[in-house]
């Protein structure tokens, strides 16, 4: 996969996972799941140290040979994870940021849909649309 996007519930189970698959879908799942280690660590760090960064954007979680994993956590402890191919050097940090912001906005609308049950997997055309847009843009 060249790029993948995932939304993870407060309790760390997947709410939404989508990737432009060029490699195995499964590997993407694993990548997102393992990245939660770092996310959790960063979240728990808040308030502990003085110089804790409390931005929602968590930045690059960890670099690996073939992809970069970025993280973002809402105040409701819902996590967004964006994974891009490490060969994809075109993406600047602030582009990633704006992707996350878009995701967050769209996610908030989903949360406000009275027919959506928070905690259920995300089934929303609007959200799908936003994500597809990003896939095209970055993929």
């Amino acid at each position: 996969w060249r790029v993948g996007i995932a939304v993870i519930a407060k309790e760390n189970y997947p709410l939404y996972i989508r990737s432009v698959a060029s490699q195995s879908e499964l590997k993407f799942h694993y990548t997102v799941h393992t990245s939660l280690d770092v996310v959790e660590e960063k979240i728990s760090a808040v308030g502990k140290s003085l110089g804790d960064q409390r931005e929602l954007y968590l930045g690059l979680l960890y670099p690996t040979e073939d992809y970069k994993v970025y993280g973002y956590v809402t105040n409701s402890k819902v996590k967004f994870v964006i994974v891009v191919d490490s060969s994809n050097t075109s993406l600047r940090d602030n582009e990633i940021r704006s992707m996350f912001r878009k995701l967050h906005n769209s996610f908030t609308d989903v949360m406000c849909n009275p027919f959506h049950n928070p905690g259920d997997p995300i089934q929303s055309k609007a959200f799908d649309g936003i994500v597809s847009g990003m896939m095209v843009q970055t993929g």
Partner: protein
Amino acid sequence: MADEAPFQFLHSEVIQYVFGASDSGDAETGRNITKVESMGFRVGQGLIERLTKETSRFKDELDVMKFICKDFWTCLFKKQIDNLRTNHQGIYVLQDSKFQLLSHLSAGKQYLDQAPKYLAFTCGLVRGALSNLGVKSIVTAEVSIMPACKFQVMIQKI
């Protein structure tokens, strides 16, 4: 734009709908209170999600509470909570000396028994907001003299 009016009309209509005209038994009333409360809960979840979009992550419980008293309350009722007190053991008392949803009930004893109906939704709002911010709680409210109102938040430690 008279922006609080639609909500107030809607709110009291919701109360009307759920509780009906006649005053039914305690058990029934209890169930209805829960119903309204859970509606508030869901709305609170949604609102807080929007409200905290730009704010940076919270430091701790107290930080969250302050946010509820300031920004959240302002968003709901265009005013802040007048007084926040805590025993530092997970109990917070939020006092609103002029609570919007009671202001139209004319003051005086005879309405005091009606008050709980009009507080349930807001209790739900607060509980929903908190739970979405990862703070499990029980929220109750009490009125001593209209339209002043105390909301008590009891944090559930898991």
